[in-house]
Structure formats: C-alpha cells, structure tokens
C-alpha cells in the first residue's frame, strides 16, 4: 500500500517536472521545427512527438540542462527528417506544400507590415532552398544563437565541420537573397 503511494507521488512529481520542461523549451523547439519544415502545423506534431519521447526515454532527472536541451533539439531534427521523407513519398505532397505555403505566406496585414512580411517570406524561401543540414545549422546559429559547441552536441558534428558547413550555407544564402532582391 505504502509502495503504491510512493510510486504515485514519484509519478506525480515526474509529471510536474515534465510540464515545467515543456513550458521551458516549447517556444524554442516550435520555432526551430517551423523553420526546418516551413510548416507550423507539422512543427507542432514534431515537437509533440519529441516531448513524448522525452518522457518515455529520458532516464535522468527532468530538469533544464544543456544535455537535455541538446537531446530535445536532436530528437526534433530526427523527427523533422522523418516527416520530410514521409511527405516526399506522398504523391500529392508538392501540391499541398504549395497550398500551405500560399496560406502561410499570405500577407496578413496591409500597409507598413507588408514589407516585413515580404522579407520574412523571402528569408523562408531562401532557407527552404538550402539542404536540410545547412538549414539546420543556420537556424541553430543565427536564430537560436547557439554556440558552435552546443551545435556540435546537437548535431554530432565536430565544431570545425559546423563552421565549414555554416560558411558554405551563408555564402549560398547570400547568393539566393541577392537573386531574389531581398539583399
């Protein structure tokens, strides 16, 4: 009886810790996934799966830490790769993507915000033209402001290789943005 009570208390505590972790990381992970996938609703699915995996597989204490953060980003990346593979297998994927994109890209407000929306659209399009690995590094470095060391922990790449890929990605992004007239 007492063992069962203890188990229930432990489960309740773990659930509370888990909720705190969700609140701590959800915004950053949603932003990261949305930029990788270019699709907010897919990003939500991917992040949701990452949190379920965290609860089931994370063996240590559920407390915010560099290790836990790197683990979450890695899972989101893997889930995003799976999502992209699954989507590319579907025959109507391209059409749906265009439709979703049209909805997401539609200027929501007229006037002054229009140019900000256009810039965002140009940047999103440019990012989508990069290979996934390059896009991932640009998002982690430029938007999430992670250090090379943190990126290395998330991606499993050496810091030297991170620098190398990022260099080429930024060069390519500059070219794309220049071509579209955003720069």
């Amino acid at each position: 009886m007492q063992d069962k009570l203890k188990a229930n208390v432990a489960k309740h505590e773990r659930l509370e810790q888990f909720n705190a972790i969700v609140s701590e990381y959800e915004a950053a992970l949603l932003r990261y996934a949305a930029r990788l996938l270019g699709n907010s609703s897919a990003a939500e699915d991917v992040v949701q799966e990452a949190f379920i995996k965290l609860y089931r597989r994370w063996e240590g204490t559920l407390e915010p830490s560099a290790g836990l953060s790197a683990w979450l980003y890695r899972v989101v990346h893997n889930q995003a790769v799976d999502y992209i593979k699954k989507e590319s297998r579907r025959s109507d994927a391209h059409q749906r993507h265009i439709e979703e994109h049209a909805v997401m890209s539609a200027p929501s407000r007229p006037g002054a915000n229009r140019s900000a929306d256009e810039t965002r659209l140009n940047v999103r399009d440019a990012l989508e033209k990069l290979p996934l690995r390059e896009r991932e590094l640009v998002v982690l470095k430029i938007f999430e402001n992670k250090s090379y060391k943190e990126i290395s922990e998330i991606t499993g790449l050496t810091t030297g290789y991170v620098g190398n890929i990022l260099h080429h990605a930024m060069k390519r992004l500059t070219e794309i943005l220049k071509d579209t007239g955003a720069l």
Partner: protein
Amino acid sequence: MINDKAKAAHRLKCDDIRELLIEYFLRELGQNRSDLVREHLRKCEDCRATAAELSDTVDLLRSTMHDPEEPQRLSDESRRRILHAISHPLLDWMSRHHTLVSTVVVIITLLVAGLLLRDIRIRRDLPEAIEVEVLKEAVITDEYYEE
C-alpha cells in the same frame, strides 16, 4: 605586437580571410584570429565588400527572427495528446499502429469465425452419422442372429 599582427594579417590570403568571416561575425573566433581578420579587412577593399554582404545577410535573417505567425506554445490539443500518450502508453501505441492492430483483429475474427462454423457443422452432422452407424450395427446384429 600590433605591427606583428598587421604583418600576419597582410600575409593571409583573401580566401583564408573569407573562410573566417562568418565565424568572425558570429563571435566564434578567438581574440588573435579576430584581430587578424579585423586588420585584413581594414586594408582589403574586396574582403570588406564580402564582409559587408555577409553582415547584411546575418542582419536580414535576424530581422525576421520574431515571426508573429509562428506558434509560441503548443496548442491545448497537442498538450492533451501528450498527456494521453504518457498516461496510456498501450492505447497510444495501438492508435499509432492502427493499421497493424486492425489487420490482427480481422485475422483473429476470421479464425474464430472459421472455428465456430466448423464446430456448428460437426454438431449438425453428428446425430445423422450416429444414426447411420446405429442402423448399420443393428443390421449386422440381425444378420448374425438370422444365420
């Protein structure tokens, strides 16, 4: 000391410097290499132009950092799904593998139905078979006594 750095910076080729530019802007270079890049940029107009372009790209990307269309938190529906998945792992597994679960259920149902049908047929045919056997037995017995 400053002159040494200036000489070293001058000796570095433009290609070497351009390789370092992104790390320079993102503050990932150590102090010494940052000084070399800065010194080179001061003197080389071409590299300065490349650096300006790269800096503009970084600024442009960062200006779009706060996208109002991006969700800031998970929806209530997602939270509910997470909670359901962690509280009922078996049900969650079944709903994720619903095709497999449905196939197994259909196979089991067909097997059970097949077994039941066979059982019904045996029960239906059995009294007739027994009757025939009894009659045969009686005929044999009669023939035996007649002999």
